[in-house]
């Protein structure tokens, strides 16, 4: 039997980012094939090539033993390849049925036949999709199943799932894996992209490891351990986000008290996104916020930054009430900000690096003297940041867009740290960043913490959270529902709390306990 997918010598060159070179992968039909690698290793690029979104510079793609050339996703779909993207592509205000038939109206019409087909597929693979529910009423896991159904509806026999578990909590992950096994049992092929080793080992039949854009190994789960897999992924050294000795002091740097924020969406539906959020971060302390994305973390950060105006509550920085201060004042007062989406909030992509160095600190030295810019000093300081923070660039006149993600992030970190913040807000600081840069950024956060910086860390990477934080809080539906000690908590227990299943103080046994602040961890008391 010819393999479902066979990639040979795939090479893709990209400006400034990790590209693919000499990729060889064979995916057997009727299996779950995992593609693992660190963030930025080139997995997503590879899948975009397979799905026809990008053309490889070299190499061949074979589908069911036949060599093909895809010019667009339509070609891939015609070859029964379907892709479920990391970010869902669903119209919120349409029903599940409408979303599924959208763009595929010719297949089974838009009425009864389509509905029957959807129900049939849903039943066969145990997806449990309800056709008439509005997508906006669905949770993340349900939406993902709709995406999968959408792909199956178009006749896919090979499914590509791009980091499907990134947005799920552990329990939902298990349900997803059950679905995948059903698909496999029906003879479908699943290509599963992930960097979470435990998951991969539990669901995959074959595993291909990608490092720095190329395939470094093909292994079978039964013959490998997570540690071996991890070492394959990152090379020999395993960077660890472990924080060693505690540097927490009892000086309160940031106090957030009773923050409440209600937003209205386009249809005027009001939603409480921040619900009585209170927290305190001391000098030298890293407070980690865990939670499935979209539970209010972004809003919390933006409220502290002054980009959103809470309906009630106070924010106090170093003893000064900044609840009503403008974003610029807060930055001047010593808040450093590593935004979640650096392209939208952290950089001017088409501006040179030195202008990006000014961004956010235009009123401060060395960027400005009085009301005028000090271009000479700003340029010189950009050179310093580039050197000190190891930003790999040929110069400071190049645009930010031409740097790789990791180097962009290093520039941002360097910029924020250069103004000696009292509080650093780091939202997903290592997302989409290569391994080398990740280790550097972790180092910088640790160093800053040792020097007495207070850090608010938001991350979807539970290992990062547990490794860097002095104290953990769990956010669920706009509330801080639980807290935990990173020294004892496991990712599974944290994941459980993220679904809202547990609250209060989480102990190592995973039981939800009473909300008693422990005297040793003052950071948690409010």
């Amino acid at each position, binding site marked *: 039997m010819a393999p479902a997918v066979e990639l040979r010598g795939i090479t893709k060159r990209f400006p400034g980012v990790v590209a693919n070179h000499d990729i060889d992968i064979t995916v057997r039909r009727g299996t779950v094939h995992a593609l693992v690698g660190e963030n930025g290793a080139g997995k997503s690029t590879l899948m975009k090539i397979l799905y026809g979104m990008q053309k490889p510079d070299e190499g061949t793609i074979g589908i069911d033993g036949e060599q093909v050339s895809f010019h667009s996703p339509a070609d891939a779909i015609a070859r029964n390849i379907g892709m479920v993207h990391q970010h869902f592509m669903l119209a919120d205000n349409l029903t599940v049925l409408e979303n599924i038939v959208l763009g595929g109206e010719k297949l089974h019409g838009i009425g009864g036949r389509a509905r029957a087909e959807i129900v049939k597929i849903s039943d066969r693979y145990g997806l449990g999709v309800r056709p008439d529910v509005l997508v906006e009423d669905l949770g993340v896991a349900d939406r993902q199943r709709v995406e999968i159904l959408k792909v199956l509806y178009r006749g896919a026999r090979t499914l590509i799932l791009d980091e499907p578990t990134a947005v799920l909590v552990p329990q939902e992950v298990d349900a997803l894996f059950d679905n995948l096994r059903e698909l496999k049992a029906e003879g479908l092929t699943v290509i599963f992209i992930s960097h979470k080793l435990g998951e991969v080992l539990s669901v995959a039949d074959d595993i291909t490891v990608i490092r720095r854009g190329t395939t470094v190994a093909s292994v079978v789960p039964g013959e490998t351990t997570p540690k071996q897999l991890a070492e394959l992924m990152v090379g020999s050294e395993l960077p660890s986000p472990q924080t060693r000795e505690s540097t927490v002091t009892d000086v309160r740097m940031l106090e957030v008290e009773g923050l409440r924020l209600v937003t209205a969406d386009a249809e005027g539906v009001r939603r409480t996104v921040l619900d009585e959020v209170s927290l305190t971060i001391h000098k030298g302390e890293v407070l980690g916020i865990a939670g499935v994305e979209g539970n209010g973390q972004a809003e919390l950060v933006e409220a502290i*930054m002054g980009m959103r105006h809470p309906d009630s509550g106070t924010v106090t920085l170093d003893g000064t009430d900044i609840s009503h201060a403008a974003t610029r004042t807060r930055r*001047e007062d010593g808040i450093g*900000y590593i935004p979640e989406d650096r392209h*939208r*909030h952290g950089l001017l992509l088409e501006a040179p690096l030195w202008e990006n160095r000014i961004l956010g600190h235009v009123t401060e030295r060395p960027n400005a003297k009085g009301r005028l*810019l000090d271009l000479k000093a700003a340029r010189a300081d950009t050179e310093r940041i580039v050197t000190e923070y190891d930003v790999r*660039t040929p110069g400071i006149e190049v645009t930010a867009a*031409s740097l790789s993600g990791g180097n962009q992030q290093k520039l941002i970190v360097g910029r924020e740290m250069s103004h000696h913040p009292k509080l650093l807000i780091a939202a997903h600081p290592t997302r989409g960043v290569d391994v080398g840069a990740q280790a550097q950024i972790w180092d910088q956060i640790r160093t800053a913490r040792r020097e007495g910086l207070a850090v608010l860390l938001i991350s979807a990477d539970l290992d990062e959270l547990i490794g860097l934080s002095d104290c953990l809080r769990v956010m669920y539906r706009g509330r801080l529902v639980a807290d935990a000690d990173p020294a004892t908590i496991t990712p599974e227990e944290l994941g459980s709390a993220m679904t809202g299943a547990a609250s209060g103080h989480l102990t190592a046994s995973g039981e939800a306990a009473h909300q008693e602040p422990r005297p040793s961890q003052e950071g948690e008391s409010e």
Partner: protein
Amino acid sequence: MKKLDKNKLILGVAAPVLAIVAALAITSVIILATGKDPIHAYTVMADFGSKSDSQVWIVNKAIPYYLSALAVAIGFRMNLFNIGVDGQYRIAAFFAAVVGGALTLPGFLQIPLIIIVAMLVGSVWAGIAGLLKTTRGVSEVITTIMLNSIAAAVIGYFLQEGRLAQKDGNLFHTPNIPSSSHFFTIPTTPKPLDGFLVVAVIVGALYWFVLNRTRFGFDLRTVGQSESAAEASGVSVKRMVVTSMLLSGAAAGLIGMPTLLGVSYNYGTDFPIGIGFTGIAIALLGRNHPVGMAAGALLWGFLERTGTQLEFEDYQQEIVGVMQGVIVLCVVIAYELVRRYGLRLQQRQVGEELAAQARKTDKAEVSA
């Protein structure tokens, strides 16, 4: 690094050259299609346009165009499309003319007063659009278009006998401003240059300085490049929208001044209209750059000056209009092409240089 700079320079020159060549080619084809000789047309234009009185005419004509382009460009740098420059300068010039016609102060007081009134009225008119955008979320494109019509209606109402205007033959106009308030001219032969040239140059320099050398300018450009990044960096985007609309309107207020203070001395039925729209074309042409826009305004003046002459050579009157349109299109397309090419080129170079560095360090490690 030097390589990048050289490329930048080449790319900087490439866009206008590409645009001019393309525009000439297209225009030639069009002229050929009308059965005429394009080369002869260009010769006529070049000859006539370089005459000394043509030069003066072109510069004088370019002054309001340049001011208009600056007003538009202030918005463009912010990603705001101020289509309302037209209405802003007209209503500004109208009320400035009313004030100027009603007073007889010494010129050194009255001229600045008239100009300030014009800038204030222009600001207010543009500011309405800014306020509506920030408070009600109405697109400035829509409000400024509407405000153009409202401005025309307001002027139409007041520009009647017995209101703010007087009748002069078949014209209505506001009372003439006293001769002490006439703007100075720069004596040249055969006709003098409009003294407002000095003002235009100063405003252009100010535009460049404020945008590139001040914190405020940096904030404004930041909003133009990425509103979300600007917000996160601490710029109050809303305040910036209002401020830049006010500035844009103030600059628009200047557009009518060369005419009011140097040509017509009143605002009448025959006061020029449409310069605000020409300004949009010139701002596009000059890529919002103060020097580029000056070149664009002069080019516009040149085309208008020499277009009339083409009519004497039996070319179609519309040829010049077509040329203007073609040039703007070519410039916009050429710049976008060159910009994208440059961005890709730069990314590739950065990638290559980093790869070269990496190989070097790898080798060093191996040998070590």
